[in-house]
């Protein structure tokens, strides 16, 4: 079980890939799916590695993703 989780609001995403690039543990990748505006949102490729650091949330200019630690 990972230390954290991410939640992705696909419709807000503009596919800038900041989250993908700056996730320290490479949890994310741009998916091949489209949202309704034609952007590729990220998807989780390695959920075990997520620490819930929320760097993705801090980087996201579109408020489309955030991460958090699971409460213990």
């Amino acid at each position, binding site marked *: 079980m990972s230390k954290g989780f991410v939640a992705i609001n696909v419709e807000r995403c503009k596919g800038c890939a900041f989250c993908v*690039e700056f996730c320290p543990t490479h949890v994310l990748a741009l998916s091949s799916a489209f*949202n309704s505006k034609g952007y590729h949102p990220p998807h989780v490729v390695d959920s075990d590695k997520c620490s819930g650091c929320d760097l993705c949330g801090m980087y996201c200019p579109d408020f489309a993703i955030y991460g958090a630690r699971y409460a213990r």
Partner: protein
Amino acid sequence: MSEPLLEVPCEIPPDAFNPVEPFLRTERIPHIWCAGCGIGTTVNCFTRALLASKANLDKVAIVSGIGCTGRVAGYARLDSFHTTHGRAIPFATGLKLANPELQVVVYSGDGDLFAIGGNHFIHAARRNMDIKVICVNNLTYAMTGGQTAPTTPSHVVSATAPYGVFEPAFNLVQLADACGASYVARWTTFHVKQLARSMEEVLQKKGFGFIEIISPCPTLYQRRNKMGDGLDTMKYYKQASKIRHGAPTGECNLSKAGEIVVGKFVDRDRPDYYELLQVQMHESLGDRYAEPEVGCAEC
């Protein structure tokens, strides 16, 4: 926040929410900023700073000017004022002096604050007015299509300099320093953690605080100059930035593709305008001085 379209393999606790959400007028999201624009990133940092500084959000007022960054006021769920081009700072001055209990933050862009707004910036800094100025510097006038700004580096192509800018650009941190600002820092949108911490610091420090944030404008600045997209620019920030706390601000010039000196450059204590006013009045008038009433309820 709407349900994600894609299932994520992580379990999302039912009470989880994006920390930025309570600060947004969510009914106005999605916002107008482009893909890869850094303004939204700075908003995330600002909201983290508000949380960390334990600010009473009812007492925080945001004042912005006109431009892409100026739109921040419209998305922030605070008492927010979208004013005229270049004049956020004098508006903020009036707001703060009428109600000194307010934490007044000016959130605007480089063109707005330093071209048309330049005169107001220098005087508010000189006065050490207790307002915080967050300047998102994307090196251009983005909203109107990417014209030359006082911060546009030499040799860059812009909408009004199709053959290349040849004017020397302002060094904003040096200008703020020279005008007497109590707090001066520069980060880029890559430095999210440091930026949030700087914003937290500036919110807790009396006097005129200034934070410059270098940010991509992929649609205009970067595209016109074949500098790639937002992500390419963020990678450039990561590679080219050198953290030099306390560096002499005169040595922190920006250029088209060179080093970006970031960090906290000025953190000094000077009495702010209101303090100076009170001291002078008490000295001159003694008992006859009547303290200004804070924004009268039934005036």
